[in-house]
C-alpha cells in the first residue's frame, strides 16, 4: 500500500482492490495504525474511520443501508458521505476521507 501521489496537504494511498469490496455493504480495511470502513453506496465508494464516535464499537460489524452506517452496539448512525451523526446516541461526526478509484484499486487521501 504505497503512497501514489501528493496532492495539496495529503497524499493518495492505495487501500484495497475494488473487487475485494463487498457490494452494497461495508468492508473493513486496516491501513497502518488506522482501522477503516469502506462503504459501497448508490453514489459510489466512501471511506471513514471504522470506530463509532459514541462507544468505540467497530462499525464494520454494523448494519449498512444506502448511505447510512449503524453502530452494532447502540444503533447510533452516521451518513457515510460526510460522517455526520443522524441518530442518537451518536452526537459527534465520524471522520471521513476523500477517496478515488485508480487502476482497479480504491485510494484514500491522508
Amino acid at each position: 500500500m504505497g503512497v501514489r501521489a501528493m496532492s495539496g496537504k495529503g497524499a493518495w494511498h492505495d487501500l484495497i482492490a475494488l473487487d475485494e469490496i463487498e457490494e452494497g455493504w461495508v468492508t473493513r480495511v486496516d491501513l497502518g495504525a488506522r482501522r477503516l470502513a469502506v462503504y459501497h453506496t448508490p453514489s459510489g465508494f466512501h471511506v471513514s474511520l471504522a470506530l463509532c464516535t459514541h462507544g468505540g464499537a467497530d462499525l464494520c460489524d454494523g448494519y449498512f443501508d444506502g448511505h447510512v452506517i449503524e453502530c452494532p452496539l447502540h444503533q447510533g448512525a452516521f451518513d457515510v458521505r460526510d460522517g455526520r451523526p443522524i441518530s442518537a446516541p451518536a452526537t459527534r461526526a465520524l471522520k471521513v476521507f476523500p477517496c478515488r478509484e485508480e487502476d482497479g484499486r480504491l485510494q484514500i487521501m491522508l
Partner: protein
Amino acid sequence: MTNAIITPLTQALAEGKLSRGDLKSLMQRSNRPALLRLVVWVGVLGLTSTLIAISFNSLWIWPAMFVQGIVLVHHFSLQHECVHYSVFRTRWLNNVVGYICGFIIMLPHKHFRYEHCDHHTYTQLPGDDPELIPTPETIGQYLFYLTAIPYWRTKFTELFRHVAGRLSAQEKRFVPRVEQGAIFREARIMAGLYALILAAMVTFSWWGPLWYWFIPLLLGEPVMRFVRMTEHVGRPLVAQMHENTRTNLVSLPWKFLCWNMNYHAEHHYVSSVPFHALPRLHDMLKTHIHVQSGGYFGAHRDILRQVLTHRGPGLDGGARDER
C-alpha cells in the same frame, strides 16, 4: 492498530458462533413484517377495548381492563425495538412509533434510548447498568416489585425531575451534555400533553381515557414487571452475555406481545437484528446462551428458588446485587 471495544457481537464472531455472512443476512431490515404485525396489534387493541365497552356497569369490566392493560404495557416491547431502530427499515418510522408508544406508557423515548445504551454496555453490572433490577432478597421484596409501585414511583420521579430541568448523577453519565436540553423538552411536552388530557377529562366529563387507558395501564404493569424480571434477574452479575441474560421460551401469544424479545440473550448479542429475525438467531446461538424452559414461569421458579434459599445470582452463588 486502533482496536474496537470488545462486544458480545465481536466475541460471537471471534468464536465462530456467527459469520459475517450470517450477520449481514440477519440484520436486513424491512417495513413489511412490522406493519403487518401492527395491523394485528391494533385489531387486538380494538378487541380488548370492545370487551371493556360491553362490560361497563358490571364487575367484568375489571378483568376486561386487565386484559387491555396487558396489551398496553407491551407497548414497551415495541418501543424498545424502536430504540434499536430495528422495527422498520424506514428510520424515521422507528422514532414516530417509539414516541407514540412512550406516550402511551409514560416512558420518554429519547431518555429511554440513552438509558438503554448503558444497559447494553454494562448489562448486569451493579452501579453501571441503569436498568438493573435488583434480585429480591425476600418474598416481600419480590411481591412488592411485582405491584409496580416502585416502578411508577421511579418513573414519576424521573418525569418531574426532567420537567424541572434536572438530571440525576447516573443520568448525567449516559445523557450527553448536548442532549440534556432535549431530554427536558421531551419531558415537558409529555407532561403538558398529559395535563391537557386530564383537563379535557375534567372539563368535558370525558372519562374514556380513565377506563380504556389509565386504569388498564396500572392493572397491566405488574405483568410487564413479571416479564421484565425474566430477562436478567437472578442471572449472574457478570459481563459475560451467555451468563447474565435469559432467553425465555414462551408461547406464541407472548411472543407476539413482546415482539420476540423473549429471545433476550440473542438480542443482547446482536442488538441490530430485527424482531422477526430473532428466532433464526436463536437457532444459531441456542447452545451458547442461557435458555430457560418453562416460559416466564420457569424463569420465576428460578428467581424464587434463589429468593427462598437466599442464594444470590453471583457466579459462585453467593454474591448479591448491591442495589
